């Protein structure tokens, strides 16, 4: 791999131990994946923030890096295991809270913006078309590559941190034009609307890509999509298909940049959608938990929730997971009061995938296909998907 003088100096330890360790990680990954050189990154997003995933070992590593490591580019975090202000009310135990804060303190010491969100693009860590970044959260990786047209591989916790401390990433994978071509043509022959339906579509496409052993779909037949629908789709297709990039005819910015796939193709009918939706509804589910905000709720979604909940009282545990800056906008707009007066709770900084809530509830209702996957696999809940309106209605029952 070719390194410039600055990169060589980093590797030789002239910028300190943490920078040296970071450059060792990046050059080794570059060698493994045949990168020719390093490139500068505009921003970084780090996963592996929840103490539930990090454990004591991960925390020790972070503390070691924090001894002399400082970020060189804008860096934010993935959701933590708890709301950093309101953790007690959400039933998180004190020992977990202490450990979670130790991890966030280590990130803060390195100069990382400790806003914990899976939607960095909604809170100011927002690259533009063609910029190189190093992000780790799988749904955000898919969103940035596909919807924004920025460029990132699916980074792990340590490699994303290494990019933050050096401002570099090895030039391979999705950073290169030749790896961004659509591989499979997907024709959607039925109207798709709402975050839940886009999530169901993501699962359908993700599952089919898995069967074909492919990663990049080129989707036609979707006339329009909102940011909220696209973020739901990204989370789902990344969860079920490992997809980090898709193209959508007329919607995503690179849809016309590369030759369209011509050999492999599948179609999606109304009946396929019905079956996939049924897969995300468990039999005999007893719902005692409702959650909106996977990925983190946008201010628009919170506005809708405030209208739906205004003057009503929820009868079930109801969490709205979002980024803290979005929660602050909701506070100022008066939405938070309407929502909290109805008995629903904000869980900022965290989400249902990474919070330590395994076994705490029997059945969860969500508008997110990704939340269904982790609700089952990680937390052992029964799951049901529905529209945002269905979710509110269930919570009021």
């Amino acid at each position: 791999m070719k390194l410039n003088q600055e990169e060589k100096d980093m590797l030789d330890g002239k910028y300190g131990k943490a920078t040296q360790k970071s450059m060792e990680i990046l050059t080794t990954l570059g060698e493994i994946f045949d990168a020719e050189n390093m490139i500068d990154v505009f921003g970084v997003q780090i996963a592996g923030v929840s103490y539930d995933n990090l454990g004591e070992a991960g925390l020790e590593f972070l503390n070691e890096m924090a001894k002399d490591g400082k970020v060189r580019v804008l860096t934010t975090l993935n959701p933590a295991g708890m709301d950093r202000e309101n953790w007690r009310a959400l039933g998180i135990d004190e020992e977990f809270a202490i450990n979670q804060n130790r991890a966030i303190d280590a990130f803060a010491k390195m100069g990382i913006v400790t806003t914990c969100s899976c939607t960095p693009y909604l809170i100011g860590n927002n690259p533009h078309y063609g910029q190189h970044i190093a992000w780790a959260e799988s749904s955000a990786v898919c969103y940035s590559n596909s919807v924004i047209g920025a460029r990132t591989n699916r980074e792990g916790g340590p490699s994303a941190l290494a990019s933050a401390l050096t401002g570099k990433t090895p030039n391979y994978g999705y950073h290169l034009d030749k790896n961004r071509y659509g591989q499979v043509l997907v024709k959607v022959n039925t109207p798709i609307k709402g975050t839940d339906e886009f999530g169901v579509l993501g699962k359908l496409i993700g599952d089919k890509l898995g069967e074909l052993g492919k990663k990049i779909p080129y989707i036609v037949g979707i006339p329009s999509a909102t940011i909220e629908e696209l973020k739901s789709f990204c989370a789902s297709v990344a969860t079920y298909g490992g997809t980090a990039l898709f193209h959508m005819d007329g919607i995503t910015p690179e849809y016309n940049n590369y030759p369209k796939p011509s050999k492999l193709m599948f179609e999606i009918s109304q009946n396929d959608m019905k079956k996939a939706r049924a897969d995300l509804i468990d039999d005999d589910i007893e719902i005692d938990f409702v959650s909106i905000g996977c990925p983190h709720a946008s201010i628009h979604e919170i506005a809708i929730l405030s209208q739906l909940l205004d003057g009503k009282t929820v009868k079930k545990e109801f969490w709205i997971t979002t980024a803290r800056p979005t929660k602050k906008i909701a506070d100022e707009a008066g939405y938070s009061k309407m929502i909290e007066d109805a008995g629903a709770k904000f869980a900022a900084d965290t989400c249902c995938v990474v919070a330590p809530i395994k076994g705490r509830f029997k059945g969860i209702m969500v508008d997110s296909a990704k939340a269904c996957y982790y609700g089952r696999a990680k937390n052992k809940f029964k799951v049901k998907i529905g529209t945002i309106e269905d979710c509110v209605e269930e919570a009021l029952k």
Partner: protein
Amino acid sequence: MKLTGRKIYKGMAEGEAIVTNDGISFYGGVDPDTGKVVEVGHELEGQSVTGKVLVFPTGKGSTVGSYTMYRMKKNNTAPIAIINKEIDTIIAVGCIISEIPCVDKIDIERIKTGQKLIVNGDDGIVTI
């Protein structure tokens, strides 16, 4: 006998080989406190990798495995070197952050458990 591969992480180590044809997931598959393989049904289940040259085809499982390797190094339960047929990112990053010499692209069928090995992570050479 000399086997030449690719260097992944630098350093020299000399010790006894423990060889498996199964992939290894350090997260959940190896107990970082005892150094024993705990994955049910694994070829090495119940055996300790501590202080050995661990030889296996490739890594598998969660990316948290890199952090587990780091914890083993701190607990003095880590292997002294790792030899893979084909490295994956979890094991590579684990070796770098834990400073465990590592070589890949080695024909691991030629190594038997109990053989004495010298691992040269600087040049990517394993001597039996």
